[in-house]
């Protein structure tokens, strides 16, 4: 582009900085509020933008007054199992579509593609009734099973598998390598970046899941962090203890933010290739 004048450049940086402040301010506010003491927070009619007496008491309250640790553990179990199952399903079917030759492959792939258009809202209703009738409410099985399948990731990985030269596959076949061995020893290592990206996107999705967990669980013992936050908001901490609430919010947000800071290149690349959240 053409060179900008100095004034134009200053305007550009100002604008970008304003948006950065808008993005970061809620994070600043939640951390700030979480270290204010209960009495200090409620004493401020006009909220202060800083505090001189930070306290960790709210974090202690967050873990002792509500089962935040429990919510955390549940979310980790849910996220880990869902992501692992998803990877098994996705890798196997992407491999079948990319390399195996079998009757009906084209038709099945078209069916899978058309399933991408189906909104979750349509299928949640029956899934809820099915799970209720099978007495799987308030179980991990009920939480996890409907969250596993992701047609989009199958598509993404299949595209990536197809980029691996087919000659490799034929050579391996001549050597008598089995399909499964070829998948594990050649395909997966080569396509590891895509597999990692898919796993991270799924982890983010699981960590933020709200609608399905809310429908399928009504016992605190099975709440995930999102439901936990909602529960805390409705009747935890006696409603008005906002600093403790904010401490819980910070604790819940931290794992994903760390994940993001470590993998930000991969996450952003993965999302621009195929994330959807509009």
């Amino acid at each position: 582009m053409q060179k900008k004048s100095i004034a134009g450049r200053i305007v550009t940086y100002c604008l970008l900085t304003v948006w950065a402040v808008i993005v970061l301010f809620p994070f600043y506010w939640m951390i700030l509020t979480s270290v204010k003491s209960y009495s200090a927070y409620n004493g401020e009619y006009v909220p202060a933008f800083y505090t001189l007496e930070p306290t960790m008491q709210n974090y202690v309250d967050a873990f002792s007054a509500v089962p935040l640790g429990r919510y955390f553990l549940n979310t980790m179990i849910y996220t880990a199992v869902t992501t692992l199952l998803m990877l098994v399903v996705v890798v196997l079917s992407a491999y079948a579509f990319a390399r195996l030759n079998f009757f009906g492959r084209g038709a099945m792939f078209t069916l899978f593609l058309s399933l991408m258009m189906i909104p979750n809202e349509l299928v949640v209703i029956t899934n809820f009734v099915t799970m209720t009738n099978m007495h799987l409410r308030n179980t991990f099985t009920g939480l996890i099973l409907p969250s596993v399948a992701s047609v989009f990731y199958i598509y993404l990985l299949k595209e990536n598998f197809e980029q691996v030269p087919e000659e490799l596959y034929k050579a391996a076949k001549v050597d008598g390598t089995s399909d499964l061995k070829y998948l594990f020893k050649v395909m997966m290592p080569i396509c590891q970046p895509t597999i990692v990206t898919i796993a991270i996107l799924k982890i983010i999705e699981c960590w933020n899941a709200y609608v399905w967990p809310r429908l399928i669980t009504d016992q605190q013992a099975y709440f995930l962090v999102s439901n936990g936050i909602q529960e805390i908001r409705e009747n935890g901490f006696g409603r008005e203890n906002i600093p403790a609430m904010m401490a819980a919010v910070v604790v819940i947000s931290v794992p994903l933010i760390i994940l993001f800071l470590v993998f930000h290149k991969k996450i952003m690349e993965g999302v621009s290739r195929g994330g959807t959240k509009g």
Partner: protein
Amino acid sequence: MRLRHLKGWLYLLPALLFLGCFMIYPLVDVLIYSLEEGYNSASQTYFGVGLYNFSYVLHDPYFLQAVKNTLLLVVITVPLSTGLALLISVQLSSIPKLRDLYQTVFFLPYVTNTLAVGLVFMILFKKTPYSDGMINALIHLFGGETVDFMDGPYWAKMLVTCLYTVWIVMPFKILILTSALASVNPDYYKVARVDATPRWRIFTKITLPMISPMIFYLIITGFIGAFKAYSDEVALFGVNLNAAGMNTIVGYVYDMLYGDSGGYPSYASAAALILFAIVLTITVINLLVSRKHVYYA
């Protein structure tokens, strides 16, 4: 060679099981539910078959309120967030330094828990007898009239909802647009510079046409996403969205299914199908419009 076919299907089997049980079967089932009149979820019986469920939903004042809220949300946030994202992406692409840093910061809302940050927004905008809250303190500072954004007038609640929605959807849009801008062939700009083309003209005649497919992609996904709004509203106003008058179509579906007003999967199915029909219509219109205006290289 029969073995070969069998093997292919074997690899596909897990995916088929999951998709069959949790996507294909429910899809058929939701159609059946929506046509069963007077379905009782306790005894699993129904009176007859017909379109009564649709008529009930379309006459339900809560549903009409939800449609109104959702439409307002769509009409306000989609153009606003797309325009703002375009402005920021263009500025972002024009700076030589700190681009990665800004980009990373701008992406942060994407990886946060919607429910958690929604609570922060609620606290920023809330006005209680003990405190005006942060936003009202600012309004007061500039001499404005303070408003209770969370329990006050409809427009104030709608404003907060729109602001939060824009905040949440911006990272995705900025990311897509900056990578679209980066992929425009620099030769076009060089030629334009030789001809001394003014900057605004370069933008409207080269940049915009080149990235128009991505803009339309964002508008389509934006429409779909905004029509399905629900968690953001729960984050701000709590689970009882009808009481706050801020329910959305998806919220109506879930309320019919579950909770204090729940137990009506037939009404929920009808409402979900109406939503699907609306989204499908709008997407088709978008695609038809885009065919006229989008330049595909």
